[in-house]
């Protein structure tokens, strides 16, 4: 299988399982023998702040950082954090977005207005991405058994968009491999529910 360049950002709030989500996609790339480079965030910068990991897959890739305007898949575990990736989003971008807004506590103290989800979606549309998939990942995760696995729900939804350069099933296998045994079944359940739930936005 040959891929020249496929760029992914997983964005959210520190603590949402952003790194785990990206690691699953990277594991799928490894299983297929694809070249990739992934950039991640550790340390103080991850404490409930804006976090994004960048994953670049393909034979043309050497830099671990994505060039503005060249994003192929955005997985936004939190919608404000999705919107924060604006410089990377273009006509080639598929957006998979959780609809649960987590207001930054500092915004209240600075009196910075917090846009509603509908406003966020409108702003996202104005960037003309290829497609936007919206889901209520927390409700689906709860249905699977725990809020914790909202990230895996989002991963399932990302698979369902069909844009990932992997044959059917590889991502799920990667998830099975990367999951700690205690969470394996829960993660797979969440992944399947996420995959089934994808629907176009209102």
């Amino acid at each position, binding site marked *: 299988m040959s891929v020249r360049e496929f760029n992914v950002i997983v964005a959210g709030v520190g603590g949402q399982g952003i790194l785990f989500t990206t690691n699953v996609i990277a594991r799928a790339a490894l299983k297929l023998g694809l070249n990739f480079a992934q950039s*991640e965030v550790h340390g103080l910068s991850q404490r409930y702040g804006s976090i994004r990991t960048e994953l670049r897959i393909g034979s043309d890739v050497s830099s671990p950082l994505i060039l503005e305007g060249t994003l192929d898949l955005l997985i936004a575990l939190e919608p404000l954090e999705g919107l924060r990736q*604006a410089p990377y989003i273009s006509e080639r971008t598929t957006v998979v977005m959780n609809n649960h807004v987590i207001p930054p506590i500092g915004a209240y103290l600075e009196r910075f207005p917090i846009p509603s989800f509908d406003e966020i979606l409108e702003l996202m549309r*104005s960037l003309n991405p290829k497609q936007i998939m919206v889901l209520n990942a927390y409700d689906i995760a709860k249905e699977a058994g725990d809020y914790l696995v909202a990230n895996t729900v989002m991963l399932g939804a990302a698979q369902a968009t069909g844009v990932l350069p992997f044959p059917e099933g590889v991502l799920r296998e990667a998830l099975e491999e990367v999951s700690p045994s205690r969470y394996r079944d829960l993660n797979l359940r969440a992944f399947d529910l996420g995959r089934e739930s994808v629907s176009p936005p209102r």
Partner: protein
Amino acid sequence: MGDLLAPANTLEVLLGNEAVARGALEAGLNVAAAYPGTPSTEIGEALAKVAKKVGIYFEWSANEKVATEVAMGAAWSGLRALTMMKHVGFNVASDAIFTLAYAGVTGAMVIVSADDPHAHSSQNEQDNRHYGESVGLPMLEPTNPQEAKDFTKEAFELSSRYKIPVMVRTTTRISHQRGPVRLGEITAGFSKGKFVPPEPDRYLQVGAIARKHHAELLEKLKEISMDVSPSYAKVEGSSDAEFGVVTSGVAYAHTKEALKLVNVDAKILKLGMTFPLPEEVIGEFLSSVNTVLVVEELDPYLEMRVKAIAKDHAPEVEVLGKLTGHMPRVGEYTMRTVLEGLSKALGVVPPVNFAEIDRRSSEILKKVPPRPPVLCPACPHRSTGYALRRAAGRAAFMGDIGCYALLFQKPFRVEHVTHAMGSSIGLANGIDIATDQDVVALIGDSTFFHAGIPALINAVHNKRKMTVMIMDNRITAMTGHQPHPGTEVNAVGDEAPAIDIEKVVRSIGVDYVRVVDPYDHAATERAIREALKHDGVSVVITKRECALLTVARLRRQGQKIVPYRVNPDKCTYCRVCINTFACPAFVDTGSMVEIDPTVCFGCGACVPVCPYGAFEPQEGSLNWREQKIGV
């Protein structure tokens, strides 16, 4: 995440830091010691996890200098030793390292410096390439995780061959880059060595002996610059190109792709050994082009040296870089930085319309509220900050390095300073001498052991008046939960004697010492008010484990995390909770405050904050203070 012990000849996904650890294992590592610090931490975490299985010795040391000396001791006993640190950690260790270069080693020793361009998780953007030259340490710089593994392994071989320590310098985007790595055979293990100085004066650095060893070191480095450095220099691209780029580290990875995008005839000189530099190779490269752009993060380290070499080898070549304004000196490089620099140097329009991207996205970004890192929900430091604000609001607050540095933020603002490890107490000494203000120092448990104790001794001996808050969350939290001398287990999970902070403080002669649970806001406030009245050095130890540890343990025990809720009949929308406690689980709906159940850890610390008692447990909610969970 990656399997550090995966078999040889397989491809494994490794973080750059894990790759460094694997490289050391493949090189026959025996002993490793470090103090955690972003972006270097995962090297030690990876080794800690496999130490017992592989049979190596690993410890989290009290600080970087001690870690270096532990590794030196092993390398002077004929073993293969590793120490690793963040860029500013190197400053702490440097006193030992400078003289180590004169002494050399009998086994092998590798020192990893993980720099942090952009200061993602640091107090500065220090460029540790300067250390290579000023100490006299050969320095290798990998450009991706594969090279991080290979270069670390080779660094051990070089160290063993030349009997001097070798440095591997990474940056955040190498340390925290994950990629496929082709593995080799693990040869690490442990057997006892013997401390036998190769010559009687080998480890006695004074006067004439030190001068003799200095001269020897310079000879070795000269030899390395001729015999080794050239093999780490690679030229790529079309040989008749008149435009060249000299680069190293992650900047090479950006450059390689950026050159394809600008689509010009160019060649790259990639330097894998940035000290000592291969003068002949660089000279030859410079004389083969008309113009050269130096692409490197932070200081114009290569650029200055390339210019010096050009003077002798290619006086006509035009050298562009930071000094000519083509490349920035602050922050980390991205594909964009390099594309813009290249386009400027070549006099072409950048292949991407960045102005249009900026115009479009800046409109949107204006509407996205910033989200800087904040203290986690249930963080004990939030409660300490809350009590400090109420009890000591007008003091001069000297902060330190740790998660609690975030208490500089609204609404707490109980850190006027965050500087260097242990500086809080040292600075409090100076501020107390110079002013009549109340002075409070805030320091974490791990930082206290690292560099706080000498400053506290200094304060007692010199009869200072100050209050020291030792915020003991029972772990090195910010870097991801490493044990320290105050914890009951060591790096590899064995039981270890825990040094009791209260006993240390009392033994120094501090006569006002209180230990409180910070969740008990009233008791914490009372202790702070008394401490401030005390004539002398007073210490308040706020003792409660990092909330992330508590939550992880509760989950492991199968305990359900049930969030608190706000009773809408009691909430008056006074916003006192947001304005004084600011837990990230609070949501302002415009008519009341709610708790986001996806964020709340169900600790109950917010309960006493509401004047109307609106925070309530739900069925199954715990109360960490009343039930003594996490203390």
